[in-house]
């Protein structure tokens, strides 16, 4: 293995850190250079994550690209990174959303340097969580990802930005407060005094009689970031207030950190507790799906519709996890990836429309479809993906989850079908009211401002990814299944 491949994960992690240093070192007033540096770094992250994908051996359920460096061995802390079928799609997703997000923000003019510096810090944290295999580093990166959010939303946001930023940060740190004792408790009650997640996963003790308590803390703690009902209220508010690329990153990638945390820490280390708690998880997940969809139905603000649709779609992820079946969990991971790409596409387009029209009111748009055909088409692709139309990635994810759920929880299956119908309704409602209604003359001026040239690039990448995995789901599923089927053996 070449040096690059042997240290691929650490290089991936250090790229945004280096980016932070580079951006900080560029003298003030040199915004163009800052953007180019950010594009370079994010492009490199994307390319390396694609390389990682191709070098990954889908046939193996073992961790790959593992690197170990003793950090504080006496305290059981080691720097361990590695990827398996659960984390690999997430790393690729991060690369995709990071790069497209940077390009989306090319028009930013205020405090450019600080914006990209904070974004780099955020992405470093996100990548770190997805590759860390030591609980200490896992939590360190998790916490690192939380705070730049406050500044990114508070400084560059819109619509009640300070309220949204404060609410979001407080919620997420409240979740961390539950995780702190739980994660340290895992090391202690395992009797191993190590934070090495692979070793903890092999423990089959009774965790000092605390396994259910630990799992519930982990579920709720990470659940806050995953938008778990009833702790989801920060999410629509935060996503609406955040600037375009931050909404993309947050709804697209950060919410996945929460679901990934439940899966990676809770499921692999405490499977015996999952069995006891899963029915409750399923109930809350169904609440997520139905509640999110219902509320999305009644929104007048375009961004809020997407915000609540994320709550609903994350419910699908958590329902998949709650089924405790290979198909359900694979579907959940697939949905994390598909929803991440889809929602990034949503926000990049809504943000584009908002930046030009300064309006997000659905009824106000009327027939925007004839005035901004390109932007609207892209929104429609994302919308169809959200509604689970075949040919787009989400279809397979939702199909897998719903089939698994109907088997495990037949009664709740009915609710899920209602959820599917509701999703279709709120998506079509937006289409008809905002894009295909009577043309509003107010927006005639936008005809010339439609997506053009390089502005199409980030959206085109995301659309292509959705289509690709819509037609070739096995490419992604093969990677995921290798790990989930192995995981299931412990249930």
């Amino acid at each position, binding site marked *: 293995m070449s040096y690059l491949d042997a240290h691929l994960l650490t290089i991936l992690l250090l790229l945004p850190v280096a980016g932070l240093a580079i951006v900080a070192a560029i003298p*003030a007033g040199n915004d163009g250079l800052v953007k180019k540096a950010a594009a370079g770094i994010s492009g490199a992250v994307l390319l390396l994550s694609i390389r990682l994908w191709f070098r990954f051996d889908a046939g193996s359920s073992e961790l790959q690209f593992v690197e170990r460096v003793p950090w*504080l061995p006496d*305290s059981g802390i080691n720097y361990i990174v590695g990827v398996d079928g659960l984390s690999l799609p997430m790393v690729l997703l991060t690369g995709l959303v990071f790069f497209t997000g940077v390009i989306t923000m090319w028009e930013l003019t205020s405090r450019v340097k600080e914006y990209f510096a904070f974004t780099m810090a955020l992405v470093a944290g996100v990548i770190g969580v997805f590759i860390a295999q030591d609980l200490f580093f896992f939590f360190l990166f998790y*916490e*690192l990802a939380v705070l730049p959010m406050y500044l990114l939303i508070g400084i560059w946001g819109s619509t009640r930005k300070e309220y949204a930023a*404060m609410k979001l940060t407080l919620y997420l740190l*409240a979740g961390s*407060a539950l995780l702190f*004792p739980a994660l340290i408790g895992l090391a*202690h009650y395992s009797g191993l005094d190590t934070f090495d997640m692979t070793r903890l996963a092999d423990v089959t003790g009774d965790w000092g009689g605390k396994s259910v308590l630990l799992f519930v803390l982990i579920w709720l703690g990470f659940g806050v970031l995953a938008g778990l009902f009833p702790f989801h209220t920060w999410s629509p508010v935060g996503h609406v207030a955040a600037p375009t690329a931050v909404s993309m990153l947050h709804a697209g990638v950060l919410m996945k950190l929460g679901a990934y945390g439940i899966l990676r820490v809770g499921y692999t280390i405490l499977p015996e507790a999952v069995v006891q708690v899963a029915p409750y998880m399923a109930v809350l997940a169904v609440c997520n799906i139905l509640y999110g969809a219902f509320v999305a139905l009644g929104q007048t603000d375009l961004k809020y519709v997407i915000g609540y649709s994320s709550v609903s779609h994350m419910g699908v992820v958590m329902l998949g996890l709650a089924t405790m079946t290979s198909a359900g969990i694979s579907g959940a991971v697939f949905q994390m990836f598909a929803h991440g790409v889809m929602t990034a596409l949503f926000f990049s387009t809504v943000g584009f429309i908002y930046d030009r029209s300064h309006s997000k009111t659905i009824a106000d748009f009327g027939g925007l479809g004839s005035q901004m055909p390109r932007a609207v088409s892209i929104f429609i692709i994302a919308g169809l993906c959200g509604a689970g139309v075949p040919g787009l990635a989400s279809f397979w994810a939702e199909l897998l989850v719903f089939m698994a759920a109907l088997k495990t929880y037949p009664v709740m299956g009915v609710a899920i079908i209602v959820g599917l119908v509701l999703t279709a309704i709120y998506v079509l409602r937006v289409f008809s009211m905002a894009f295909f209604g009577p043309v509003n003359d107010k927006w005639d001026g936008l005809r010339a401002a439609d997506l053009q040239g390089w502005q199409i690039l980030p959206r085109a990448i995301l659309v292509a990814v959705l289509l690709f995995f819509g037609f070739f789901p096995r490419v992604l599923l093969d990677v995921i299944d290798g790990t989930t089927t192995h995981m299931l053996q412990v249930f």
Partner: protein
Amino acid sequence: MADLMLFLPETICLLGALMLFAAQVVGVRYRVVWVLAMLAGALALAASVWTWPLSGEPFYPGIYHVGFFSQFVKTIIAGGFVFVAAISSRPQTVREEAWAELPMFLLLATTGMMMLASAMELVTLYISMELAAYPVYVAVALHRNHDFRGESAVKYMLQGMVASAVTLYGMTFIFGLSGSTYGTDIFLQLDALAGQPLFWLAAVLVLAGFLFKLAAFPFHFWAPDTYQTAPHEVVTFVATASKVAAIAVLCRIAALVAPAGLDAPLLTTVLMWMSVGAMTLGNLAALRQGDLKRLLGYSAVAHAGYVLIGIQTLSATGLTAALFYAIGYAAMSALCFLVVVEVGRDDDLVPIESLAGLHQRAPLLAATLLIGLFGLIGLPPTVGFIGKWFLFSAAIEQGQFVLVLVAAINSAVALYYYLLVIRQAYLVEPVRAAPLHTGMVTLLVAGATTGLVVAMGIVPGWFWTKSVEAVAALM
């Protein structure tokens, strides 16, 4: 001669204080005094590091112990003094005619704090404690505003004296029970003493004086008022070096009684509830503060609570975590106070709003504040995160799961008021548009301290190993 070598850092501090006194009598310019103070501090710092490998008991056996723990702590305290001296290039809130006296008093207090770290005998401990306290009482009273002088100095001094009287009272019990004031003698009789509740009551009373310095609940009443109304530079000293000295003594006493302490849970129970009280009260009270220094005062109360988590475990891991956190905390709050000093240079009071638009007026200071506050919140990549991780780990080792949950929820509550400060610095547009110019020396120490806070947060190995060694030298 060997004795003198062991006593070198303290000697340098004392001579430095005398030199500053002479300089002030002669009437040299403040600029010169400032440079001399930094030099003396740097020398003391170097001497402390130089004495790391030494150990022994200078002058009289059993009274004063020099070992890695004491010298390590002295290094941190000397570092704290250097920091405070470096940012005192223009201590505007101090009466102009008293500028030259400020570094002298602080250096004298530093001597006392260094002696605290070595004192092994009750009377020596008490004398060192007073030597560390009195110069600060005076320094607090040097404020240029007459009303402030009264408020902060009287509160700090009266409560400080009450606390030290309580400590003395506790010492008399211990002497009565054990017939000795020597730490080693008391340690040898520990088995017999541990059975007597009065001994544990006395131990709590002895700790009172140091818990006061640490601003731990219920000895915290002075902190918000004194923080708010004392000269900025003096508060910086109180918030950094003074805290480290207090934690060092708490560690020493905890290590002394640890073998018997876990069988007689009175002490641990009292300390645990003090910790819970300090965290909860400090954080809740800080939520409603509009004055930055006052807010940091309540935050200090809360952090005293976090440190006590480590100390009340009476375990080597817990004390190591407390010592490690003490270094980190001193550095983090030093960063915040550095910004207070710069922003509030011309003002007696520093409301949070005075930070408005700092990102525009002084980007480097804003970044310094951001790192300092990240640390106080307990977020990576700063020492605040890993420090809490160590403290919490030590408590969970003792099975105190609920205590850790309470502490973690407390950190989440605290986030709110720290974010209000960050909000002013980063989100709000400036009220005073003029850029803020910061001196080279200040920027230099800001950079070094930021480096320390981040380095301890990311590669804690060296600092942690040293803390482990220090506590091992203690147990």
